[in-house]
């Protein structure tokens, strides 16, 4: 074995085919899954923004490095299950630390590595909240981001906060490693929660392995499958779908940094072409970015004919987008039937359902009024009414139900809350028993917070979490936008309501409606600009700001702000405004 350590890392990517028999995630823990994958030739490959292969990390090498690092982590006096916070950039260190935790019986927590222009303070605050929320004992980042992490960790009493390279200087504890067992926590996932009140999803080894088995079979993973991903590791789709899933099925994966993709979306398709990848997932936002930014003259250069699973999920899927992507990439051999609409969330490890393979995007056209007024899915002829995409049947060994607001189970084609139960479901939110109780019943049913209906066993999502905004693929909680508004000196609590409205291309546009007594146009302008800037710095989104007189925002009967009421009023005001504008135009 010593010989292997001396082998120079080859400049070519790991193959995906190997003599190792394919095993579809049938392991009891992530550590045993890696033990098995390490016997083959496959692994993870990291590409630079230039498109060149930067680092090759075969699972065999990853296992060795992770075990060594595990012993170094254990040189600190850590209780079993202590949290190790990792700023999750797309690099080999993330994998090393994540799996070192697996071998050491520690719990990795991926922290976001997304920083917005001018967002220094906001990023530090966010990291601080997460480090505090999970009571991290150790924290690591690249040397580039270390200043932010160090600032964020101040006053929290962590044992060690440092760059990845500094951990390699630590002594190895002389011990027999005891990897995290089936009933222990595999990782804590802080994801779609509001930044003001982060919630860490507890996923055990059993839960994540059950989910990986489900996706292995759901996607019919084969020996010649190869994956490509640009999704960040701090998102469930990036971590579970594009790191743990390929590893647990011994397939090779090619990584592109999220920011490099956002800058040059064509790199994704170039990589798919060059590696002949067969599986790649993205939220609709990623496909939309390709549609928007690809140069038409480049399309003929791509060969996407090997792409058999083009997973799409994590935000509402619109058939107009998948149609446009399919048309645009048809000359590159993209098969529209490769689209696999998917439904899932961190609270269920990742996947809840996949559309059947080879069927592409199947759409239900529904009567819009029946939908809004009676919560009924009434079919109408294609291209009329509202369209929703079928996300396939719930994973094997899992159950799904639709319930109304009183908890009554609804029949097919009736819209209500989507509730799921099964081995992939989380144990709860870390140290938040009340929050856990709100969504997880004693008999194991998880309230997804999403609205939808069932038809022929397929899940169809009609609305995501009641108030959540999804901007450019990221979940934004209205509370976070409203908190930025109400902390301004001239505003008070209850003066702001954040909602989303459909933009010109059906994308969500964030709107913040603020009530205040300011009448001076200059002062109004300054407030609007300040709000716009602070929201961007903290949340990285452009938000339309509307100022209205005090007592304009509607309230519910219990006196709470009504976001749906605010939204309706805003749209009415916009409508009467545009009518007024066109009247003026007509007169002119």
């Amino acid at each position, binding site marked *: 074995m010593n010989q292997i350590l001396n082998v120079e890392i080859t400049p070519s990517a790991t193959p995906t085919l190997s003599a190792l028999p394919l095993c579809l995630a049938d392991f009891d823990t992530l550590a045993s899954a890696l033990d098995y994958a390490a016997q083959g030739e496959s692994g993870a490959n990291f590409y630079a923004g230039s498109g060149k292969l930067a680092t090759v990390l075969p699972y065999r090498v990853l296992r060795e490095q992770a075990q060594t690092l595990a012993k170094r982590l254990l040189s600190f006096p850590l209780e079993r299950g202590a949290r190790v916070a990792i700023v999750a950039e797309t690099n080999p260190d993330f994998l090393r630390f994540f799996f070192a935790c697996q071998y050491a019986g520690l719990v990795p927590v991926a922290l976001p590595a997304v920083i917005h222009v001018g967002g220094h303070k906001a*990023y530090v605050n966010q990291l601080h909240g997460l480090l505090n929320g999970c009571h991290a004992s150790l924290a690591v980042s690249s040397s580039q981001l270390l200043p932010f992490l160090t600032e964020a960790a101040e006053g929290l009493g962590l044992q060690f906060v440092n760059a990845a390279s500094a951990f390699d200087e630590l002594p190895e504890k002389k011990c027999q490693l005891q990897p995290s067992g089936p009933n222990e926590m595999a990782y804590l996932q802080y994801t779609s929660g509001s930044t003001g009140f982060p919630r860490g999803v507890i996923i055990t080894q059993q839960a994540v392995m059950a989910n990986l088995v489900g996706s292995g079979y759901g996607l019919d993973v084969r020996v010649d499958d190869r994956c490509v991903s640009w999704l960040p590791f701090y998102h469930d789709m990036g971590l579970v779908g594009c790191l743990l899933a390929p590893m647990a099925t011994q397939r090779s994966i090619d990584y592109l940094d999220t920011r490099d993709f956002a800058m040059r979306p064509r790199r994704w398709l170039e990589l798919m072409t060059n590696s002949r990848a067969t599986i790649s997932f993205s939220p609709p936002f990623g496909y939309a970015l390709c549609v928007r930014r690809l140069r038409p003259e480049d399309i003929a250069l791509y060969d996407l004919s090997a792409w058999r699973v083009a997973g799409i999920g994590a935000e509402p899927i619109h058939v107009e987008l998948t149609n446009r992507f399919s048309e645009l990439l048809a000359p590159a051999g993209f098969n529209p039937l490769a689209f696999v609409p998917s439904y899932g969330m961190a609270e269920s490890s990742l996947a809840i359902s996949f559309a059947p393979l080879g069927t592409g995007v199947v759409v239900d056209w529904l009567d819009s009024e029946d939908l809004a007024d009676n919560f009924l899915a009434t079919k109408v002829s294609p291209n009329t009414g509202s369209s929703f995409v079928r996300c396939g049947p719930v994973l094997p060994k899992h159950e799904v139900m639709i319930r109304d607001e009183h908890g009554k189970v609804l029949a097919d084609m009736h819209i209500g809350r989507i509730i799921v139960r099964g081995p992939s479901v989380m144990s709860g939110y870390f140290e938040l028993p009340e929050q856990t109780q709100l969504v997880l019943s004693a008999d194991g049913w998880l309230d997804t917070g999403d609205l939808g209906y069932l038809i022929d066993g397929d899940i169809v999502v009609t609305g995501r979490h009641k108030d959540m905004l999804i901007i*450019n693929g990221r979940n934004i909680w209205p509370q976070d936008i409203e908190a930025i508004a109400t902390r301004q000196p001239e505003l008070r609590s209850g003066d702001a309501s954040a909602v989303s409205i459909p933009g010109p291309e059906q994308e969500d546009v964030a709107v913040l409606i603020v009530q205040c007594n300011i009448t001076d146009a200059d002062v109004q302008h300054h407030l609007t600009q300040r709000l716009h800037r602070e929201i961007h710095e903290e949340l990285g989104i452009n938000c339309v700001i509307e100022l209205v007189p005090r007592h304009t925002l509607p309230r519910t009967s219990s006196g709470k702000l009504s976001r749906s009421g605010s939204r309706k009023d805003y749209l009415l005001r916009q409508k009467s405004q545009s009518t007024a504008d066109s009247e003026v135009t007509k007169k002119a």
Partner: protein
Amino acid sequence: MTEYQRILADMTKGLAPFTKGRVEVNENTELVGDLELDSLQIMELLLFVEDSFDISIPVSILPDVKTVGDLAKQVEKIIGNS
């Protein structure tokens, strides 16, 4: 013309497609506050900057960049180090 001024001039030119002619761009113009660039437009701007100066911009500089001048200074530093 100093290196900084040259970078600033190039960058101002590169920003033209984003300003829609509404805003006069100078070194004190705020990328978000004044130009209202969203996170995807920031990516397109970085792409322009990386390509035209043939550099790679580390993610860690962004949090302390507010104005066009801030970005030009960072670019100057990166070019100087390479």
